[in-house]
């Protein structure tokens, strides 16, 4: 039986307007040497998708996992390799590039995959919905956190 979980019960807005420009955001963050998973994600996406623009956000702090975790990420990839591809194929390319991370330490991966033209007409990154606490007490997530620490 699952233990009782925290509920962040803020409802998401009815219009589901989850986009906002990140005014404070630096488009090319310096990789943090103490964050190996973030670094690996950045490297692999860069090598395999040759993006014009890439953002990798560790959103673990927004979820029911210990501070310093690298388990929940949001990526925005702008690449001409996505041209002519439906969303699902684009996402599969990203998943494939990050196969190892997804099978070991990354529990959640939010993806935005745009062509350079799409990015040009709408350069905003979506915002993740509020956590509902499901990771707390989740054995699968605990295993992934452990894998990330090793």
């Amino acid at each position, binding site marked *: 039986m699952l233990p009782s979980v925290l509920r962040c019960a803020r409802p*998401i807005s009815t219009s*589901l307007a989850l986009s906002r420009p990140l005014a404070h955001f630096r488009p090319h963050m310096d990789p943090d040497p103490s964050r190996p998973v973030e670094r690996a994600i950045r490297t692999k996406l860069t090598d395999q998708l040759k993006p014009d623009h890439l953002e990798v956000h560790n959103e673990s702090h927004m979820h029911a996992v210990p501070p310093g975790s690298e388990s929940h990420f949001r990526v925005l990839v702008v690449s001409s390799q996505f041209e002519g591809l439906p969303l699902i194929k684009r996402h599969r390319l990203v998943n494939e590039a990050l196969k190892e991370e997804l099978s070991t330490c990354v529990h959640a991966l939010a993806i*935005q995959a745009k062509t350079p033209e799409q990015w040009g007409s709408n350069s905003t990154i*979506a915002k993740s919905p509020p956590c509902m606490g499901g990771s707390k007490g989740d054995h699968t997530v605990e295993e992934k956190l452990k894998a990330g620490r090793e």
Partner: protein
Amino acid sequence: MNNLIRATARCLRSGAAVYLPRQTDGRVWSAASARFLCSAVDIQKDLGEMVKKDKVVVFMKGTPAQPMCGFSNAVVQILRMHGVDEYAAYNVLEDQDLRQGVKDFSNWPTIPQVYFNGEFVGGCDILLQMHQNGDLVEELQKLGISSALQNAEKESK
């Protein structure tokens, strides 16, 4: 009717939780229940049947009444906004074999996962983008489901 009773009994014994949304007159949607067998090989076969049994199938964390994950909740909210309340929702937190099985079946590493007419559509991000760009209304129409936002879509054009 007897088949439904037998299927429900099997579902209760296997312990997998399936959400069967109620129609407005109180009847439970007569979609089938969850998998019947326990082995990993069988789960793949069962998944093949599960995703085709209903027009809209969602594998999620928690239930539509009580989602346990923000991304799963987003899928539920989007479907609700479009007036889709007849769909099969499978709670992967209740069943670790199902949780891993659906990831293998779809070749997709995360939950939630959405199927339309037996075809994998994607996760929360894709459904959200389809909702935002109007594609979801169109895809639901292809399933014979009239989205509650369809008129709004028409008026904006």
